[in-house]
């Protein structure tokens, strides 16, 4: 088993990954805690919430890369799985607010505001973290499995699949926008106080969440790497390139597609659950069709079919977004739009593709 894992990367590759992990989980927190605030190298507290957010996006990009980059199925509905994880976590955080809400009631504030007298049944259990964790791990995957089962069984693929996933996220967004659905309507869930007893306002909690996210991302990356390098991964790539031929060769492609689709949703759900406590809000706009399309562009920018590309792409696009929305908010959409066009027209291999292109000129290309 250990051997199986070690062959995932070359010696240099492992070194690089551990180097990155060390920077992310040890050096940066160290710089924050032990350096004085006026030092040039000091990392301010707010950076950890921001970086934690980016890491969640990177996890989403990883999930989308598995299904799109490797299997060739474009989903425009990953916002749904992300929101499912997010809402489950949000519900737990709402319940752990206790009676400290604005209305001093045991019920979440928005329910008091809507004049609800008791908790809806589907909120039961979210008082317990273990139950919440179970929901986060199971629900998005289960939902994806059911949806995928019917979709793949009817051989919906390509553009049709993209469009019905878009319809799915659109329908769920409309549903969650309603107050009657019981998830806070427009405003969603917010004003969280603590997680597992730790105050969410505390910098140490934020840093803890950030480190957890980094570790989860690391593990997910290894899992994805393991999958795409296995025989299963080869079949997935074959499905992407010529599904009919794979079928003619005797493979039941539904099983493979269903597996990777469910796994992708599972990772996405975890990303959502990690995202909510760090950002402090979850609302239905996360399920807007435009959000899910934007997720796809992270992967495209970084480079489809390369896991590192997905991670880099999520960081690049969201970094650019943060920068644009502060300095030139009017031109962010121009930039994003141009990114969509330029990447699909000229850089089909994305950022990583350009990088390895230049890299390969010098020396023999490392097989990935």
């Amino acid at each position, binding site marked *: 088993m250990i051997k199986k894992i070690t062959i995932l990367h070359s010696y240099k590759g492992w070194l690089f990954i551990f180097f990155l992990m060390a920077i992310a989980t040890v050096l940066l927190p160290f710089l924050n805690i032990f350096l004085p605030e006026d030092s040039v190298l000091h990392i301010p507290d707010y950076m950890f919430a921001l970086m934690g957010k980016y890491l969640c996006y990177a996890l989403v990009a990883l999930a989308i890369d598995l299904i799109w980059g490797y299997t060739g199925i*474009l989903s425009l509905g990953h916002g749904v799985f992300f929101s499912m994880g997010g809402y489950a976590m949000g519900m737990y955080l709402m319940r752990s607010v206790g009676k400290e809400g604005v209305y001093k009631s045991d019920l979440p504030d928005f329910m008091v505001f809507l004049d609800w007298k008791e908790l809806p049944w589907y909120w039961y259990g979210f008082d317990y973290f273990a139950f919440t964790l179970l929901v986060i791990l199971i629900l998005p995957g289960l939902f994806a499995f059911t949806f995928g089962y*019917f*979709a793949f*069984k*009817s*051989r*919906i693929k*390509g*553009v*049709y699949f*993209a*469009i*019905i996933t*878009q*319809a*799915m996220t*659109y*329908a769920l967004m*409309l*549903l969650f*926008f*309603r107050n009657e659905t019981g998830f806070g309507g427009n405003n969603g869930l917010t004003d969280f106080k603590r997680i597992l007893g730790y105050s969410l306002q505390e910098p140490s909690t934020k840093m803890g969440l950030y480190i957890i996210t980094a570790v989860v991302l690391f593990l997910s990356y290894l899992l994805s790497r393991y999958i795409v390098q296995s025989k299963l991964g080869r079949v997935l790539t074959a499905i992407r390139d*010529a*599904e*009919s031929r794979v079928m003619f060769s005797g493979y039941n492609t539904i099983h493979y597609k269903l597996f990777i689709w469910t796994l992708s949703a599972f990772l996405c759900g975890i990303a959502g659950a990690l995202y909510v406590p760090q950002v402090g809000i979850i609302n239905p706009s996360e399920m807007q*069709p*435009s959000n899910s*399309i934007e997720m*796809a*562009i992270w992967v*495209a920018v970084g480079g489809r079919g390369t896991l590192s590309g997905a991670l880099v792409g999520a960081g690049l696009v969201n970094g650019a977004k943060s920068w644009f929305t502060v300095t030139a908010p*009017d*031109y962010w*959409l*121009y930039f*994003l*739009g*141009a*990114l*969509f*066009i330029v*990447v*699909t*027209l000229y850089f*089909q291999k994305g950022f990583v593709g350009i990088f390895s292109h230049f890299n390969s000129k010098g020396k023999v290309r490392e097989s990935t």
Partner: protein
Amino acid sequence: MIKSCPLFNSYKPTVTLKGRKILARFIGVFVFLIAGLLSFSLCEANDFESAIKDLGNKSRSKIKMAVKRLGNMGDLKALPALEALKNKRLRISEGGAIIILNEVGDQGRDVQNGNAVDLSSLTLRKPKINNSVRRVLTMAIGKLRLTSDSSEVRLEAARNLLKRPSSGLVELIEKALDKESDDEVREIFMLVLAKERLNSDDKNMRLQSLKTIYEFGDNDFISAIEALLDKNDAGEYLESDPEIRDSAAKAISKIENRQFFINQAANLFYGLSLGSILLLAALGLAITFGLMGVINMAHGEMLMLGAYSTFIVQNLFKEFLPSFFDWYLIVSIPIAFIVSASIGVLLERSIIRHLYGRPLETLLATWGISLILIQSVRLIFGAQNVAVANPSFLSGGIEVFHGVVLPFNRIAILIFVVFVVVSVWTLLQKTSLGLQVRAVTQNREMASCMGISTHKIDMYTFGLGSGVAGLGGLALSQIGNVGPELGQLYIVDSFMVVVTGGVGKIAGTVAGALGLGILNKFMEPVAGAVLGKIIVLVLIIVLIQKRPQGLFAPKGRMVDN
């Protein structure tokens, strides 16, 4: 003397600015004198004139009395003044002349002699009225209108009577009913009387009333009749007469029955209307997606561009040709088409043609295009919605049943859709261009071998699809808001229509759009607007499971890639 006023006015252009001021003052004094003289001389005039004059009285009770008197006199000449009083367009000059302003408020007319007056020279006072006066006023106007010569005015007056208690008017209505020749108005008069007499002492009269309601009544009567069937706490009927109870129950079931059918008919119409809008939004997509296999996520923005073109044409007309304002919509039709089509062609040439055969990439690239278009429009026209006014011939509607109004703009869109669909169909099926388009759709290489310039055909087809979307935007501007996000609202729905209907068939798109529109409107009363929409989306997803190629799938089997 009065005639000399226009004469003076006609000198105006020749005098200098300073002279003009003096002149204006002179005219002012003149008019004041005339008004004073007139009011003096009319003091002793007949009852009508004095009542009109009393409208300008400073005491509210006097005004109220005057309004009542005018209402009872039944002289239609009083109507404009009363209406002006109600709409706050009545003014009183210092000399006591009663003046009606026009709608804009820049011209005035003296009530007593009907002459135009120069407003700039007069100090005007608004009459002070309160709710009690307003109530009397509404009643008086209603009474006067009942005797109007125009059957439309009478109809409206009668309908207004239905809405509020009119016990004081029974005799008047009876009289009016005797004279009435128009069936529709008669019907409503009878209903008004029935409502008044429902609780009278005469049993026959009550039965007669119930019968009238049975025949013509609508929902508004249900609560009044249900009151007849109420029981007291001991479980006894409040209404002792079983015959009345019986016919009341009959009337209720009849009304509910009739209302059910009316509602279904209304749903059908609104469903068709929604379907026609969806069809306009989706038809262009059906062309680009269905015929060319291009997923154009910027399709919604083509709608938006069409709507904004209409907005610009409207503004140009407002600015330069205000007297031909109503024509702007007609002029917009080709312009909206050309604007959207040329931008579509531009996109096809510069971006989309590089992506043929890669549908998922096309989807992302066109999404990028749509972001850029939205942001450009937002920067040029602002993020707020802009107003596109209906031309006068499209405002209003016809009331087919009581409470069911079919707006003219929706009817016009229905007709417009038929026109567009027929044109597109003819173009594709009956012209040589259409033949080439279909040939390229079926087999690109073969068509190319036969000498068809496939690049050109691609360009035309994409232009056509975008242009039709522009027409859709023009239609949308007539029924809703025009804003940068207009296209985003319709893009998901348009895709649903195309996918439901099946790709590559205009008939499929038509069936898909109308079917979804009607289904949506029939779901709405059952499940609510949002939930209805969700159910429809879920149904579509289920349908695609069953028929992945849509309702009108091309026959035969094929293996892709």
